[in-house]
C-alpha cells in the first residue's frame, strides 16, 4: 500500500466566529495550510479536496460546501467531496483522503474540517447535535449528547470509584494546555479549587448533566483545521521542501451500535478499541510506542475511558494516571496537549482534523512554549462520533 505524509497544516482560532461565513472560515484554515506547505503559488497540484462538516446544511443553510471551498481558494479543477460522519467527520475525511492516495486515485489531498455552530443559540446547537441519536428511541425523549455523557460518567464512577475531584483534574490539565495554545477557544486556566473544592464551586461550576458539570464538558465552538497529504512516492513530494513530512502511519475506524442501550456493557467503547487495533496494526506499533495522544474529550470522562480502550491503561486505571500527572505535558504520556476538546473547543467537523494538526505540530517540534512534548516519535488521536458508534483512530509518526 502507498504511504502518505502530512506535508501542510492549517488552523483557525476556535471560538465564536459567527460573524464569518462557514466557507470563509474553512478557506482561512486551508490557506494557512497552503502557506505552511509552501504551495500557495503551486496550489493546483492538489488533486482532491475533502471537506468534513456536520451542520452546514442544517445550521448554516449551506450545501455543496466542498465545491464552494474549492472555488473560494481557487483550486479548480480539483476533485471535491463532503464527508459527514457526525463529530468524527474530520478524521473520517483524513482516512478517506489517505484511501484515495493508497488507491492511486490522488497524490495530493487537502482535508479541511470546519463548523460554524455559534450562528445559532446553544439550545438549537444542542438539538442539532442530538439529531445523530436514534430518532425514536433516543432523540424523541429530549435527551442530548451531554445526557449520554452524564449517564456514562455515573456508571464509570460507580464501577471504578472515580471521584469528582479526580475527574476535574482532567479539566485542569486540559485548560492548562489550552491556555498555551493560541487557537484554543478557552483561554483561561481552571483550578481544582475553583471548579471543585471552593465553597463557590457548585455554583460557579454548575451542573449540566449530573454528575457532569460545566467544566467537565467542551464548549460549543466554531473553527476549522486543515491537513494536506501527499503520497510519499509521488513526484509531487518535490514541492514540499519547507517542512518535515510527518508520516500518516496508521488509521482505522470502527462502528458500534447506534443505541447505547444495545451495548452489553455500555462502559466498553468497542469501536474505540477496534479502531485503535486497526491503526496500531497498520502502523506496526503498540500502545507503549505512543509518545502522546489527542483523545476526544467532549466530556472529560471520555479522555479517561478512551485512554483505557486504546491500551494506555487498564480499565478503571486512567484515574491513577491523571492523579499522578502521567498525562500532563511533562508526564510520561501527555494527553490532549492542545487543550483537547475541553479547552481548545469542539467545532464538530473540524475536531478530527484539528487533532491530527496537533499530532503534526508536536512531531515537528513546533508546539508553543510550555506545551511541547519532549522528542515525540509517535502521536495517536481518537475522533469519537455519536456516542462512540463511529470512531477513527489515527497514528502519525516522525519518518
Amino acid at each position, binding site marked *: 500500500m502507498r504511504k502518505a505524509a502530512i506535508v501542510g497544516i492549517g488552523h483557525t482560532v476556535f471560538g465564536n466566529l459567527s460573524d464569518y461565513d462557514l466557507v470563509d472560515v474553512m478557506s482561512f484554515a486551508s490557506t494557512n495550510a497552503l502557506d505552511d506547505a509552501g504551495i500557495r503559488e503551486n496550489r493546483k497540484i492538489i488533486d482532491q479536496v475533502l471537506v468534513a462538516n456536520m451542520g452546514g446544511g442544517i445550521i448554516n443553510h449551506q450545501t455543496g460546501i466542498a465545491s464552494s471551498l474549492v472555488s473560494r481558494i481557487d483550486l479548480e479543477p480539483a476533485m471535491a467531496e463532503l464527508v459527514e460522519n457526525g463529530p468524527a467527520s474530520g478524521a473520517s475525511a483524513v482516512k478517506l483522503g489517505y484511501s484515495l492516495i493508497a488507491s492511486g486515485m490522488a497524490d495530493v489531498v487537502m482535508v479541511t474540517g470546519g463548523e460554524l455552530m455559534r450562528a445559532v443559540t446553544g439550545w438549537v446547537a444542542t438539538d442539532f447535535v442530538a439529531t445523530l441519536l436514534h430518532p425514536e428511541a433516543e432523540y*424523541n425523549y*429530549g435527551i442530548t449528547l*451531554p*445526557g449520554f455523557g452524564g449517564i456514562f460518567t*455515573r456508571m464509570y464512577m460507580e464501577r471504578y470509584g472515580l471521584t469528582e475531584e479526580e475527574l476535574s483534574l482532567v479539566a485542569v490539565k486540559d485548560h492548562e494546555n489550552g491556555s498555551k495554545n493560541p487557537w484554543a477557544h478557552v483561554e483561561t486556566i481552571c483550578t481544582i479549587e475553583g471548579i471543585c473544592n471552593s465553597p463557590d464551586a457548585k455554583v460557579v461550576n454548575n451542573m449540566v448533566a*449530573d454528575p457532569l458539570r460545566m467544566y467537565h464538558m467542551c464548549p460549543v465552538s466554531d473553527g476549522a483545521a486543515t491537513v494536506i497529504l501527499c503520497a510519499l512516492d509521488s513526484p509531487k513530494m518535490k514541492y514540499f521542501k519547507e517542512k518535515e513530512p510527518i508520516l500518516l502511519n496508521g488509521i482505522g475506524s470502527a462502528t458500534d451500535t447506534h443505541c447505547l442501550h444495545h451495548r452489553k456493557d455500555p462502559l466498553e467503547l468497542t469501536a474505540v478499541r477496534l479502531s485503535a487495533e486497526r491503526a496500531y496494526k497498520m502502523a506496526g506499533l503498540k500502545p507503549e510506542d505512543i509518545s502522546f495522544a489527542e483523545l476526544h474529550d467532549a466530556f472529560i470522562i471520555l479522555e479517561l475511558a478512551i485512554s483505557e480502550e486504546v491500551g494506555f491503561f487498564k480499565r478503571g486505571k486512567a484515574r491513577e494516571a491523571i492523579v499522578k500527572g502521567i498525562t500532563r505535558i511533562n508526564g510520561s504520556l501527555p494527553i490532549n496537549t492542545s487543550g483537547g476538546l475541553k479547552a481548545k473547543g469542539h467545532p464538530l467537523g473540524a475536531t478530527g482534523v484539528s487533532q491530527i494538526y496537533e499530532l503534526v505540530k508536536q512531531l515537528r517540534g513546533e508546539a508553543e512554549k510550555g506545551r511541547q512534548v519532549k522528542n515525540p516519535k509517535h502521536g495517536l488521536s481518537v475522533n469519537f462520533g455519536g456516542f462512540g458508534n463511529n470512531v477513527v483512530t489515527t497514528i502519525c509518526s516522525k519518518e
Partner: protein
Amino acid sequence: MDIDFSQYEPFKPVVYAVKCPKCGTLDYPAPMICKNCGERRDPSGAIFSAWEKVPLDGKCKLLGWTKLYALPEGIEKKYLLFGVVEFENGLRAIGRLLVEEPKTGMELVSTAGLVREIPGEDVAGFIFDIAG
C-alpha cells in the same frame, strides 16, 4: 381498501418492541433485520412481514441515569431526568425518569406516556417511576 382507522383515534401512548416471526427474538427499537437469524422486516408489510408488535412496559431495573439541564430547543424545562433500564425480558431502553433521587439498580415500573410534542405529532415513550 384497508384503512387504518386507529390513526384517527385519540392519542394513546404505547411503545412497542417487535418480535421476529422466524426465531421469536424481541428487539427495541424495531430493526430492519433480525440480529439473531437475519430475517427481514418490512414496515409496510407489503413485501416482507411487518413483524408482530409487542407492547413493552412493566417492571424494569435502573442501570444508569442523569439529571440533564442541557436540553434541546423545543423543551422548555429547567431539567429532565433520564434513565437506562433493563426490562424483565432482557430488553433495554432509555426513557424519562420521574424519580427525583434515583439510585442505580433500583426497581422501577415503565409505562408509556407522552414524552414530546412535536408540532402535529404527540410522541409516546417510556416513563419510568417507582412501582405503585
